[in-house]
């Protein structure tokens, strides 16, 4: 294992563990897995999960079983920008399906795939709590709502120009 958190991420992880009572610091597992994903290219490899286990002082299996349960944790490599389009009920009746087709054509990938340059992964996800501003997608920490094809074009241009990992959490 040769992975390690940055100094900043390690300090933050240790501070997070102190938020829970003595002996209950395993509670910090999910918050720390979010940090791990931000530190290690947007996904959780076995090495990354083993490393998290070592920080918290729990068995690797305790990390695997949690990481594999939650939909925000990627168990496979992903692009720098995961475009997560909500396709549940209210979004589905207000344009999510056509937005997904538009993005598939534009990026020349299917749902679940990543562009050849490793920039974009396209996903359909379940309700993100943005039902009144459909269609919408999440990329990293940001919500992009009331989308049209033009707005989606602008977003892709913006994210391409930023050219960085869009994570759910920033290490600050």
């Amino acid at each position, binding site marked *: 294992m040769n992975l390690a958190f940055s100094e900043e991420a390690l300090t933050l992880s240790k501070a997070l563990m102190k*938020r829970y*009572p003595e002996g*209950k610091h*395993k*509670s*910090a*597992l*999910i*918050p720390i*897995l*979010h940090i791990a994903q931000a530190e290690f290219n947007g996904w959780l490899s076995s090495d990354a999960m083993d490393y998290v286990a070592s920080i918290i002082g729990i068995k690797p299996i*305790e990390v695997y*079983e*949690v990481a594999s*349960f*939650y*939909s*925000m*944790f990627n168990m496979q490599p992903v692009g720098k920008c995961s475009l997560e389009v909500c*396709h*549940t*009920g*209210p979004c*589905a*009746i*207000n344009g999510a399906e056509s937005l997904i087709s538009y993005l598939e054509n534009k990026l020349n990938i299917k749902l679940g795939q990543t562009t050849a340059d490793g920039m974009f992964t396209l996903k359909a*996800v*379940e*309700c*993100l*709590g*943005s*039902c*009144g*501003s*459909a269609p919408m997608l*999440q990329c990293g*920490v*940001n*919500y992009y709502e009331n989308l049209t094809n033009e707005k989606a074009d602008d977003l892709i241009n913006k994210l391409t120009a930023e050219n960085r990992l869009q994570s*759910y*959490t920033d290490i600050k």
Partner: protein
Amino acid sequence: MSRKILLEHIDVPGINTFDTYRKMGGYRSVEKALKTMSPDDVVEEVKKSGMRGRGGAGFPTGMKWSFLAKPVGVPRYLVCNADESEPGTFKDRYLMEKIPHALIEGMITSSYALGANTSYIYIRGEYFYVLRILEKAIAEAYANGFLGKNILGSGYDLDLYVHPGAGAYICGEETALLESLEGKRGNPRVKPPFPAIAGLYACPTVVNNVETIAAIAPIVNMGGDEYAKIGIGRSTGTKLISASGHINNPGIYEIELGLPVEEFIYSDKYCGGIKNGKKLKAVVAGGSSVPILPANLILKTANNEARLMSYESLSDGGFVSGTMLGSGGFIVYDEDSCIVRNTWNFARFYHHESCGQCSPCREGTGWMEKVLHRIEYGHGKLSDIDLLVEVSKKIEGNTICPLGDAAAWPVASAIRHFREEFEWHIKEASISQTRNFGLLAAHEALVK
């Protein structure tokens, strides 16, 4: 009927900051409770208010609080359920994003009432940007002496933390939420024991929804009896409604309980009517889990009385002709909507979100999704309709948490009220691929 309590100051610039919130009367409930009331006094006011939990189940909050065990020397916890994931529901996000201090204030006053010295807000991971807003608000509350040691010189200590989830609808179920908060998979626990006896870290715990906790501040400020005068019957107070679907004005509305459904849908103060001048076909009134109702039954009860936005009126007629207020996720469908496709969509959602612990839910949700998919895509058989009803009945009531019921109800109710449309989909498979059932046969059910 347009009384605003939670959102009274929503339009005040800077209301997300401590200073402005305080200037508008914020944190008065903390002062009142800590300086002039005992914890039991606060619980008593909440009981008197008659407020029912705003997360979906509608259980009276004061009663839930009074179940909390208080063994000596054992810590107690208040956990706020900010895992808002019920399709159609986005009110908690709005409240936390716009007026984060309303939740923080409610957390402090409620924690004092329950005797908790450490409290957590469990927020769904997708709302990470809202988590940052809350953390900033919490830091402001600490800096101003409303959190930490010896709050306002009362001798009461409270630490408050925000904890992110990571994408799992099931963590909105309170015992799954507690498992998740302990750093585990979000598998609901077998009850009893209920969290009031053995919750977080096996200690007595109350889990309340964001809107419920935010409403504690006005209840303490005005007194439970005054709060109980707002609303109608046993549906006291105001409720945040998330309006979405085919309407002119989607968004969050605070309504006094008892508002007629018809006014809510058609008034320009609320939804503003159906988009593009279309007719109303159906409504899911309380988040995706509650039974869908056709236009005639959402506007009027089976007894031809005006249907109201209240716990009692919406559930009038039981599941034969009624539904539930649930979380207040109000999804409106116009005349062109395809009920089969919508039902399949919801079934896919529940299949995706089933935690897999109980066989009826794990297998049944997938089975329903598969059958609905084949009906929607022109490969259904007429016997599939009864098969769906049968599977839904075998899930309902046979799981350790309500996700099973939540998955069964949308399917059963869609078939109950729109069976003809399902039959049409199967019999006219080729046509149903290119056009929706729409006005074809549901004509009589449509109004306006």
